[in-house]
């Protein structure tokens, strides 16, 4: 298990456009996430689950993939990551408002259950950790067809307690499959702290027991995540097998709109966590290195806001699913 931190040189090597684009995607994810929470508080979106605090991890990983080529098996906090893969704010506002045009599920599932064949994003359900095995199977198919694709599958640290997690890592290691197991460790599973989830400091400590590299990275540091993910992806693409990548994140919001984390976390803990906002942190970094000039951040914010406004206007008007369709698509046509 190696602990990586962003190499100071790395940012320089990236084109400024790309860095701005990364920042923009983080902002877009954040603002869309906030909008959905507002819709929930307004009573318009019955359920919302937030990814705030995970944006850097998701953008860092997403930018290490080849869009339209590599695959993603996400989990419910991956709003920003599925945007990076090519989904649109519109898609998620449709989902939040339960519109027929929700591309994830046609409003059959709760929001946050991502999936889009067009973007190589595998359909996901609610059971935690089942997706791990699907990703391994996807990678097995890549291997079988001699494709140079990789698949990223994400999960929370709580999800690593499930048997499916173990079975999946084990299988991928045996067959040297091109999977990156991304653990977005925000140190809570609803109310259960990491100390009640495992007796080790890092999920990545487990990698050695499967025979794969395990990397812990500061999930608030987008460049560090990106660097680690890029290495893991390269390794997978070379046919050298899977990597366990743990991004240490903060969960800025409660578990979901049904939860209130003030009931089981101390005020100090919450305040301390808020000082680690990854979006703010990246902005400061980019401004310091003059990748963002004065006013750039505001402009990006405004552009994202406009996108979201337009998307919501569209979603507001969009129809709910026709009742007659409820019975369709249990089975295929043949």
């Amino acid at each position, binding site marked *: 298990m190696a602990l990586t931190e962003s190499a100071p040189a790395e940012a320089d090597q990236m084109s400024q456009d790309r860095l701005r684009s990364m920042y923009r995607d983080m902002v877009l994810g954040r603002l869309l996430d906030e909008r959905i929470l507002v819709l929930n508080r307004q009573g318009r979106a*019955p*359920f919302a689950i937030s990814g705030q605090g995970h944006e850097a991890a998701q953008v860092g990983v997403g930018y290490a993939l080849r869009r339209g080529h590599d695959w993603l098996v996400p989990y419910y906090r991956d709003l920003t990551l599925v945007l990076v893969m090519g989904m649109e704010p519109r898609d998620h506002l449709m989902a939040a408002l*339960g*519109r*027929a045009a929700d591309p994830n*599920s046609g*409003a*059959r*599932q*709760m929001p946050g259950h991502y999936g889009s064949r067009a973007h190589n994003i595998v359909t996901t*359900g*609610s*059971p*935690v*950790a089942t997706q791990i095995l699907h990703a391994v199977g996807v990678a097995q198919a890549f291997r079988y067809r001699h494709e140079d694709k990789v698949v990223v599958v994400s999960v929370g640290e*709580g*999800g690593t*307690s*499930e*048997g*499916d997690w173990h079975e999946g890592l084990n299988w991928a290691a045996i067959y040297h499959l091109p999977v990156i197991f991304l653990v977005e460790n925000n140190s809570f*599973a*609803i*109310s*259960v702290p990491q100390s*009640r*989830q*495992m007796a080790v400091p890092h999920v990545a400590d487990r990698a050695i027991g499967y025979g794969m590299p395990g990397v812990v990275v500061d999930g608030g540091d987008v460049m560090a995540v990106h660097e680690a993910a890029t290495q893991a992806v390269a390794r997978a693409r070379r046919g050298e097998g899977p990597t366990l990548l743990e991004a240490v994140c903060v969960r800025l919001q409660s578990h979901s709109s*049904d*939860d209130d984390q003030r*009931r*089981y976390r101390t005020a100090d803990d919450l305040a301390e966590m808020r000082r680690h906002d990854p979006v703010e942190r990246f902005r400061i970094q980019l401004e310091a290195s003059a990748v963002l000039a004065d006013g750039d951040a505001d402009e990006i914010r405004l552009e994202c806001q406009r996108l979201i406004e337009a998307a919501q206007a569209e979603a507001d008007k969009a129809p*709910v*699913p*026709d*009742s007659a*369709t*409820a*019975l369709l698509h*249990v089975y295929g046509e043949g």
Partner: protein
Amino acid sequence: MAEVTYVEAIRSAMEEEMRRDDRVLLMGEDVGAKGGVFGATAGLFQEFGEERVIDSPLAEAAIVGVAIGCALAGLRPVAEIQFLDFIPPAMDQIISEAAKIRYRSNNDWNCPMVIRAPCGGGVHVHGALYHSQSLEALFAHVPGLKVVMPSTPRDAKGLLLAAIRDPDPVCFFEHKALYRSLREEVPEGEYVVPIGKGRVVREGRDLSCITYGATVHEAATAAERLASQGIQVEVIDLRSVRPLDRDLIVSSARKTGKVLVAHEANLALGVGAEVAAIVAEECFQQLDAPVMRLGGPEIPAIPFAESLAEVYCLGPDKIEAKLRELAAY
């Protein structure tokens, strides 16, 4: 006697039994400081401490498997599965292990434990496909298990006390739409409702509507409406779906000669199939109409959008319509 909600009745059954019997302990996800995602264990962590109210890792097979071990070693564990939809990872521990321990050891070992789980639709637009399922048929098929599905605060408390004291594994499935929507007087302290005995919710001579869980209330509403038009529906709350109260089913069916079985779970191979088969076999001479069934359509579960969910759900209207069809037969 205090008026309490269904979830409070469940909570107080655990609290009282933990005070009475120190072999009782709880385990599950978020049952500790948070008190469970529906508050069913609220305050118990504070009262009994982390040794007796165990915030488990996120692992359902472990929750049940560890509870089995506790039971084998002489404790009386109550395991909570956060939603019934998330019980399948524990299926092996439940049906291959807990259910078979007494039989396979020729009565040398037994496994007294309760597996609690909220089921059914009814909170935020029904919770959608994975927070709304009624999977009781999968357990009601399995010898060695008991499966209880209370419909009222009184029954919830009395049946949970019975379940904790039962010498065998009991699946205790709580309908989440009832948690806070009902309030009634529930005896404090000792109050046990026997597992396997149904209840006549309302007597009637014309038709029988046999049901359980939240559907009991929808059936009662439908029966009420029909009563005003002179059709007397006997509403039966099975309370337990394994074992079934065969005597009550058969006697009601023989009396009315017309039976509707209704439940929220998927229809095919559901509890309704078994009840219908029993009635068809045992009441052939007395039936004046075919046994009819109402249940979930052939889709996986309740979809998120309300416009889709309503296709799945029963509700008093659909039950009333079916009862009318039966009455007119």
